[in-house]
């Protein structure tokens, strides 16, 4: 698989975990530079998990949780999203760009969306500056 900077993928075992299982059953796997960390539910996510992932040398961290209303524990996905927001604030204070931390809602049937997100997970290209008028 493609090489890249180390990405830590933290996700709910009921949605993301199932999606990764789905990936394996279609004879595919996560890229080698991606480390998968399973947590029982989005609500178990701690800001520390994210911060320590960066400390341990990850370039980017992606958090995955269920869609609204699909959480086994009612609001786990909302907890996770909130924690990601809090962690992003801390990271930016420490001088780590916010785009390095991503959050996605996922369902077990979305393994290929996950691969696409990982593929597209890179620094956003700044919007091209508008050309000054009159220049050709």
């Amino acid at each position, binding site marked *: 698989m493609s090489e890249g900077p180390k990405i830590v993928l933290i996700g709910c075992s009921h949605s993301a975990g199932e999606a990764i299982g789905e990936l394996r059953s279609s004879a595919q796997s996560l890229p080698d530079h991606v480390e998968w960390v399973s947590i029982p539910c989005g*609500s178990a996510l701690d800001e520390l998990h994210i911060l*320590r992932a960066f400390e341990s040398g990850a370039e980017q961290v992606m958090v995955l949780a269920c869609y609204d*209303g699909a959480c086994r524990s009612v609001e786990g996905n909302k907890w996770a999203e909130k924690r990601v927001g809090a962690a992003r604030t801390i990271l930016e204070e420490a001088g780590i760009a916010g785009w390095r931390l991503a959050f996605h809602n996922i369902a077990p049937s979305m393994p290929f969306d996950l691969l696409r997100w990982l593929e597209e997970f890179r620094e956003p290209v700044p919007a091209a500056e508008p050309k000054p008028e009159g220049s050709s």
Partner: protein
Amino acid sequence: MSQRISVDKRVMVLGGSPEAGSVTQELLDLGYAVHWITPDAVLPDGPGDHPRLTRYEECALVRLDGHVGGFLGRFRRNGTELSLNASALVVATGNERYYPAERYGLALSSNVLIIPQVRKQLEAPRSTGAALPHRNQRVILLLDLGGETAKEIASEAMCLAIDLRAQWHCEVYVFYQNLKVDTYNLERLTRTMREKGIVFCRYADPQIAVDDEHINLSYIEGTVSGELLVLPEAVHPRDDTQELAGLLHVRLGEDGFFQDINIHEYRPGISVRKGIFFAGRCHMDGDLADAEGDAMQAAANVDALLGTGSLEPEVIIAHVDSTKCIRCYTCVRTCPHAAVEMADYDEVTAARVVDLACRGCGACVANCPVRAIELVGQAMPAWVQSA
């Protein structure tokens, strides 16, 4: 860590709906002892006397303690308190019907009637000599006015249409907007209706004019005039639903019925609390046959939990370090499964996670301000622990 705990095969069924009777019967057949409890005055037809069945009428829940495998329900009955034990609990309180006058914008009168009124006239004994008021008339049955008609009511409306046609030789027009016939019964009924010459019309933006003798219903395809307008009732949650949900520590869905969220992971009927199940029309829209099927499912869910006569904690569960706990109750409030409570340890009072009730989601772990709770059985990479 994993130890099996043997539990009684005893279940409480709450509610006086027909589906509560079905759950009770099914559980008795599966070998369970059942307390069948209703706040209403009379229980519906259901299982008769049975050595493993106890029935309680006019008996309202005032407090529920304990967890799966050992619920303790306190009830009030004729001014006296009553305590009952059970390993699991099935809520089958049903729903309530009402006439949605505001939504319909129509007042009931001698030629604008709801289904039970027509049914009563239809079933009045011939021997009284009363005239058959609507014989041979043209009847408009107006479904889905201002919102979808509940399936159980729609099925009653269809049965009424068939009987009006057969017994009073009425000409029946059924107006509908979004009639769902996704159950065996409803589909069969619509087919029978068409065979008997009942006319179905799909409408939108109806204009209804009612005078003493005629009803004129105008819609996009024209105007239908008739002598009798029959309206369906609507259903809403029982008045005590909110209170009961509070006592059971479960959430209500957006429409005020039990549980319509979480249907993806917890199949309908399984609540966020282990050992509490819902059956029938207290949590779903369906006709009586649907409710009956749902009752069978609820009994099967109970049997899946208690069938072996023992319970085992899940692989991953939370555990409180009582020496670190500061008794802030954050975990008690946060736990979506109502599995955390305050308890006396040897020397201190601290939070305790009830092993059997814990679903291992970790919400308490991440929320604990002093990190006194950990997930037992959860493997994390080494870098999470060491900074």
